[in-house]
């Protein structure tokens, strides 16, 4: 056995040990390899909106199969980028654009056909995020946007769950409950 073959065997052996160590983590379920856009979504949004876009819908809007509906109207399309936590997130314009397109066209699909149903460009996201909705009552503003989206697209019915009467699930024991 030549020295080179021996070295390769040793390296493969080490690799095998490392992989086994990760797979044998106590309580480890199958670990999936995440795309950069998923990493950005998960670290910036997914904690509350849910790893798969499924949240506690009255406390935090559900994204899965719903976000795409906002593209029923140009106003809805702009609104979801101008939400302060989106516009003021720590992501670059490029990565925020990728996240928005992924959340709308993958996680939040289907996107109903219409003149606002196209992918975001970096220039558009960069422009919209410079006008975050910080000077307006976000809850009533969202209600108006959602009402107009729902008037156009039946698929958007689920958008009303968030913002519906706060149930006992949020801050019980506080003066708000």
């Amino acid at each position, binding site marked *: 056995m030549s020295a080179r073959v021996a070295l390769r065997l040793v390296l493969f052996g080490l690799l095998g040990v490392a992989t086994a160590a*990760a797979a044998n983590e106590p309580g480890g379920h199958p670990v999936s390899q995440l795309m950069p856009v998923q990493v950005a979504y998960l670290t910036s949004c997914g904690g*509350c909106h849910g790893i798969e876009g499924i949240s506690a819908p009255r406390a935090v809007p559900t994204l899965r199969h719903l976000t795409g509906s906002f593209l029923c109207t140009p106003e809805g399309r702009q609104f979801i980028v101008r939400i302060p936590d989106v516009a003021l997130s720590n992501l670059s314009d490029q990565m925020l654009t990728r996240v928005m397109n992924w959340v709308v066209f993958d996680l939040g699909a289907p996107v109903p056909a219409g003149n606002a149903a196209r992918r975001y460009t970096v220039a558009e996201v960069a422009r919209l995020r410079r006008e975050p909705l910080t000077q307006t009552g976000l809850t009533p503003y969202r209600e108006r946007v959602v009402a107009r989206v729902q008037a156009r697209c039946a698929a958007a019915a689920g958008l009303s769950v968030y913002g519906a009467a706060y149930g006992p*699930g949020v801050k019980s024991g506080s003066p708000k409950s």
Partner: protein
Amino acid sequence: MKRLDVDNLGERLTRRLAGRLSRRSALARLGAVLVAAPAFPLLPVQRARAADAGAVAQQGTDFSRAAQTHDDTACNYWRYCGIDGNLCSCCGGSTHSCPPGSQPSPTSWIGSCVNPGDQRSYLVAYRDCCGAKECNKCSCLNTDHAMPIYRPQANNHIIWCFGTQSFEYHCSMAVLVGLAE
């Protein structure tokens, strides 16, 4: 007594070398040694230090350099790099399940930790178990990738029980979400 004749010795050595080697060959060898030397640090200690410095520059925090992968009831278990609170593993639950009588919160914050076993970065959801009296065992505070409270999405000091029936904090899990790189 015959004295050591350095002159003679030097002359013989030089003549022998000159007879065997061409000037070009000698220069080429000397050049090769000069060029190759920096690529092979001579002492093993130096080599180990260089490797360490490389690893630190690549990735890792104070926490990850001292982290371990076998005991999930200790604060330095690798997945706890950003945890703040009682470890559910010490309270009758685990890194990914709530102790009986408490409910997992649907909201969490997600950070990333380096697994010293493979030096790769994994996303970890710090999810609180709520609705039971505080467990008060294995209280840990680690802050890798945690943000101040004005960035609450990544703050570990908040009680992450939004969306549950009760805001009573019991313990914190560190659920593996996926491989980040």
